[in-house]
């Protein structure tokens, strides 16, 4: 297990280094002033020297400045990243909390009314783009019913953002509904596969009731593919956050990238791309670890 973890860790580090290299190469292609804003004094030396010097700066938290003499990219990241993490974290937790039981239910009772209903719903949310879903929610629950705010929390303090549930609900819900749809579909097929296995039959033959079969035998086995999906879908979730944050005018990472893209602000885009890349690598690392924890065969085979 230790060797397995160490190897996965090394692989993740290699991926991150590769990401920095790609980002830096993109930077090389950027127009002069933008590059100078990021690379700084090393702008005239060799590629490798430039890269290492830039990497050194990145490691010290220096990602360049947003605009000449203005706020640093790192500072912008420090204020926007926690907001995105709040948004993504809440919506992912909600998505898992809903999708796992919903998927198992659909697998256990595929032809029940609720099962069919859930399937239709997941199809609807699955095929509906986040900006449409968000707009619909704003229209009915925000502007129409006035239950929730139509705009994300605008406070500067994180504590205030978290407690502002009235404004936070719609962005979280928009992101969560799309994610639920993806996870529930995977969960359903994984649980259906697991229910077909002979060990489920064997558990029933030992007198296990449906509840025990689902919770003890099916749940853990069908979580394996979902956990992998979760790790791999972190970039997609962040991408979804980009749309949702723009839609709800919520100043998180996605919102800032969107703004930067519109203003051709290369340092911000690259700095944030780097963070996304590292996030994806960490996500996949966490998925591998969870995979190994869930399935003893993985631990055994790769130890």
């Amino acid at each position, binding site marked *: 297990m230790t060797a397995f973890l160490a190897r996965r860790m*090394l692989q993740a580090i290699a991926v991150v280094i590769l990401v920095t290299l790609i980002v830096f190469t993109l930077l090389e292609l950027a127009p002069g002033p933008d590059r100078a804003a990021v690379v700084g004094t090393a702008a005239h030396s060799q590629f490798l020297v430039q890269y290492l010097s830039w990497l050194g700066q990145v490691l010290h938290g220096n990602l360049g400045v947003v605009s000449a003499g203005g706020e640093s990219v790192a500072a912008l990241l420090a204020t926007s990243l926690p907001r995105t993490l709040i948004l993504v974290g809440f919506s992912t937790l909600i998505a898992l909390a809903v999708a796992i039981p919903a998927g198992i239910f659909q697998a256990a009772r595929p032809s029940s009314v609720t099962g069919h209903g859930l399937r239709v719903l997941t199809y609807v949310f699955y095929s509906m783009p986040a900006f449409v879903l968000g707009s619909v929610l704003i229209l009915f629950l925000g502007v129409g019913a006035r239950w929730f705010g139509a705009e994300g929390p605008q406070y500067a303090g994180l504590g205030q953002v978290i407690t502002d549930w009235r404004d936070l609900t719609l962005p979280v819900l928009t992101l969560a509904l799309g994610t639920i749809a993806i996870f529930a579909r995977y969960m359903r097929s994984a649980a259906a596969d697991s229910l077909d296995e002979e*060990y489920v039959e*064997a*558990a029933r033959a*030992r007198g*296990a009731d449906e509840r025990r079969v689902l919770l003890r035998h099916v749940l853990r086995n069908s979580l394996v593919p979902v956990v992998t999906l979760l790790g791999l879908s972190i970039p997609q979730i962040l991408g979804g956050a980009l749309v949702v944050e723009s839609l709800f005018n919520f100043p998180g990472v996605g919102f800032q990238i969107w703004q930067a893209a519109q203003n051709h602000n290369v340092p911000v885009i690259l700095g944030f791309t780097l963070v996304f890349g590292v996030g994806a690598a960490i996500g996949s690392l966490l998925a591998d670890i969870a995979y190994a924890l*869930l399935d*003893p065969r993985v631990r055994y085979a790769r130890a």
Partner: protein
Amino acid sequence: MADLLTITDLHTEIRLSGATVRAVNGISLSLAEGECLGLVGESGCGKTMTARSILRLLPPGGMITSGAIELDGTDLVQLPEELMQQIRGSDIGTIFQDPSTALNPTMTVGTQIAESVVVHKGADKQAALARAIDVLRLVRMPEPERVVGQYPHELSGGMRQRSLIAAAIACEPRLLIADEPTTALDVTIQREILELLDELRRDLGMAVILVTHDLGVIGGRTDKVAVMYGGRIVEYAATRSVFATPRHPYTEALFDALPELAVKGSRALYSIPGRPPDMRTESAGCSFAARCRYAQDWCSAHAPELDGDHPGHSYACFFPVSSVFGGGQAAAAIPVSAWLSGHDPSPRRSPAADGNGSSSGPLLRVTGLVKDYPVTAGLLRRKVAAVSAVADVSFELAAGETLGLVGESGCGKTTVARLLVGLEQADAGSIDFAGTDLTQLSTRQRRAQATGIQLMFQDAFASLDPMMRVRSILREPLLIQKAGRRRSHRRQVNRILDEVGLPADAADRFAREFSGGQRQRLALARALIQRPALIVADEPVSALDVSVQAQILNLMRKLQRQYGLSYLFISHDLSVIRYMADSIGVMYLGKLVEVGPAEAICAAPGHPYTRGLIDAVPVVTADPEAAQFGGGLSGEPPAATDPPSGCRFHPRCPLAQEICARQEPQLQPHSAAGQFVACHFPLEEAVSSPPPAGAADLPAAPSLS
């Protein structure tokens, strides 16, 4: 004894979209406490559905439509599901066929064994695990304290099946249902598991229903037998009388299809023509009539009742056998019917007499073949060990002959097959085929030159592309080799289909539309289409029913005669090997421990391991004494990552001496018949010769026990 279980006129249907399968069609049987019933028949005959009906665990769409299943006076059919759950696992224990899929891979073995104790006895986790350890000890699991905390993948196949048995008996059920409990296991482990079941039945006073397709498993271990066909019981009697005088032609045919009973492999096995009936439609007459060799017009118009002319032996047939063929004879002595004599009267041909085999030497000569698979560990995946899959194996095979390679799982026989056809590269040694050393060829040369060796896979269905029509599957080898014109391919495909006994319209169908036996015919056709000199057949019949197995074996022998084919026939089943092979090679942990003429090896094995394998083959007899005969092998082969020193077999060998652990025995000439044995203390032909000191448990011949 009062009857524990009484089934009366049970009907079970499986409703699919568009059709209803009458899986169980009116069966009645009873079972007393402590009694053992064998439920026999081909796949699809309804025996598993009968077992599932008792448990009320039917597949989706399945339901009991009428009849009663009384356990101790309670009708299980009428019981609400909650009460049924209380019976499953506590009153009825179940063992499944495949221990590798019937255990949850993400749960420890102990938790799964303890499950029924937790569910039924309300035990807490500690008490339940303590019980699990007790039960593991009962099923003679080594180191039960350690095993409870292990996951299924950490156990060998035999140990997994022991765990499943432990889980089934944890609450001391009064009825144990064992559905093909040994089919997925090696023949050596099969014996141990069956003996364990016998012992548990006696000690715990359980009644047992043994569901199997294998008459050898039933004989001598069951009190009575129910033979099922087409969802009905066609013969029902004490095991002794069914084996002595089978009355139903189907039962007789099942016996005749057994390779164990084929006399010295000199005649074709009887195979039941056709396929099991389509259970979606109700036939007016006897459902076996279409395949029955004695059927009259009357049979297809009238359905026979399950009835007996004397008490205790009932059968559903208008023209019962044994009365016609001089009843009272042992099954092994059932006369070869007139039907057979015209079918394949020619004795096994010898290649020399054939005039076909050139005198220039053998077709295939394998010398010093070695294959290791590296085992890596640690951060940098350093090679820390090697699985020694094939270690210095040498043998020869003449044109037109069959070499049978036999051994337990993991002995390296499949690796030999893969090396021969070029799916793996040998680490050392040479493969001389028709004068060329295949190991010296590049992949490209080999692909061009080695069409003379073709492979038949164990799992025919998995080896046939599900998206390709049969015509494309069969034509593919020709296209790859750019052999002949496309126009001629069509003709070749049609011809090969005819040769393997498939209709011409099979070419336009997909593999999934064929039965197991037909798929194996397709696999044979694909191997044959390039007209190879040698076919390497890796367990070609191990997934088939006996009757279908007989068809495939007969077909393979017919084609061998026709084309002078050689076979390297790999099987774990010695009775099949004996029927097919001219010579036999016995493998153990990557080593060839004995090789020689088939007859000589079967009659007087020289290696203790060969002796053990022969003893492990179930004897088709109703005699409990013969079936219980000890000997055989105990335990399972150790891991090939760290093969034992000296003779690799010495830790399991009853004759092992100190030298066996120290010095590796080489293959030495053993008998005048041409046997070679790698053993320091080879068995003499005469069993009475004094065994070496300390070898008191030398297995004796069955006749002497």
